């Protein structure tokens, strides 16, 4: 049977991709950020998962307002990347695991999640930056199979934090019921606090982010007390991306071991975080 071995929460700002591209990991601006990933790199190297489920949000590459899904899951043999109109140098295609994708989709729809199924899908920096961060070598990225889970935080209404946590739990059940012997890791990417638009652009909130990271392992329900509108006020409209981390957390067991955590302001306009959670056996 397939096993969810753990989860990683991570930021996904495009600037990170540029920094990797330009080998700036030891630059003073970047050093303390990249240092936070060392435990994740070691853990991934040791545990060598076969599949990564990547929970992220599209920023206007694959989805437009004509068809904006709340939850979309990829079921493609591979996923292409592109320049998004302004930014990163595209990465080579990512290899999918369509059989596991379909198993998860079947399971979720039966579990009353109203999934948008995507048999062709371009993945943007919300997906590629974490992949690049977790597996900096192309050879490693070619080995691991991916399943994109895309969550709407572009067009309000966004899914509630409660719904996200439940989706995570349902993904956990789906993976556990897959017959093939596979080790699966789940990544939740985006956030933490940041605001790109409006006069308040540049807003961050260290205190709230810190509490969020503190509660994530043992009390993820803590975030559910806030509506998405309240969250937008507290952590900025784009900081709401942290609900992606809840999906990751929800997929794991009730008991997890927090193996590492890092927090750093600023990366570009954001507060950047990373957390590594291992599923208890």
């Amino acid at each position: 049977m397939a096993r969810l071995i753990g989860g990683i929460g991570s930021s996904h700002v495009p600037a990170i991709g540029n920094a990797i591209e330009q080998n700036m990991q030891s630059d003073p601006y970047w050093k303390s950020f990249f240092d936070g990933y060392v435990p994740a790199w070691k853990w991934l190297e040791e545990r060598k998962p076969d599949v990564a489920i990547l929970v992220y949000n599209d920023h206007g590459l694959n989805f437009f307002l004509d068809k904006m899904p709340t939850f979309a899951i990829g079921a493609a043999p591979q996923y292409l990347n592109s320049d998004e109109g302004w930014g990163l140098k595209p990465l080579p295609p990512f290899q999918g695991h369509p059989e596991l994708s379909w198993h998860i989709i079947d399971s979720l729809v039966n579990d009353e999640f109203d999934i948008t199924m995507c048999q062709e899908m371009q993945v943007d920096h919300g997906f590629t930056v974490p992949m690049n961060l977790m597996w900096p070598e192309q050879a490693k990225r070619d080995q691991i199979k991916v399943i994109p889970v895309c969550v709407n935080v572009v067009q309000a209404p966004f899914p509630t934090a409660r719904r996200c946590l439940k989706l995570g739990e349902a993904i956990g059940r789906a993976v556990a019921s897959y017959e093939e012997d596979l080790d699966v890791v789940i990544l939740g990417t985006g956030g933490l606090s940041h605001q790109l638009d409006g006069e308040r652009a540049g807003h961050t909130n260290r205190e709230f982010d810190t509490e969020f990271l503190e509660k994530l392992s043992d009390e993820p329900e803590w975030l559910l007390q806030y509506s998405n509108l309240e969250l937008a006020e507290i952590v900025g409209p784009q900081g709401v991306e942290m609900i992606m981390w809840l999906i990751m957390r929800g997929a794991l067991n009730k008991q997890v071991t927090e193996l590492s955590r890092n927090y750093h302001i600023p990366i570009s306009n954001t507060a950047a975080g990373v957390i590594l959670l291992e599923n208890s056996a």
Partner: protein
Amino acid sequence: MSSQENKKAIPGTIVFDGEQAMKGYALNKMCYSFNEEANREAFKVDEDAYCEKFEITDAQRAAVKKRDVLALLNLGGNIYYLAKLTGMFGLNMQDIGAQQSGVTLEEFKAKLLAAGEN
């Protein structure tokens, strides 16, 4: 969040809800088209003709001309689609962050660095 709840304002912030989306659909559609390089080239060759094709309003047209992000947001633009427009003008997220908050780029960066030191 319900449409009612959306009405509660967050200072310095425009929530991109259904109301904003209705105002900005054509504008955002134009910006979304800039994912394709051929469309970016067409825009650069004849900005007016390109805006015409997408039937954006005169007010939106004027704000595009002025590269005025706050105005575009108020007219229904969504930051993620707008980023593809401002990217063509050589403005990144920090540039437009400074523009919107009314400070210089250096001041904007300094504010973020300061937040890291608390």
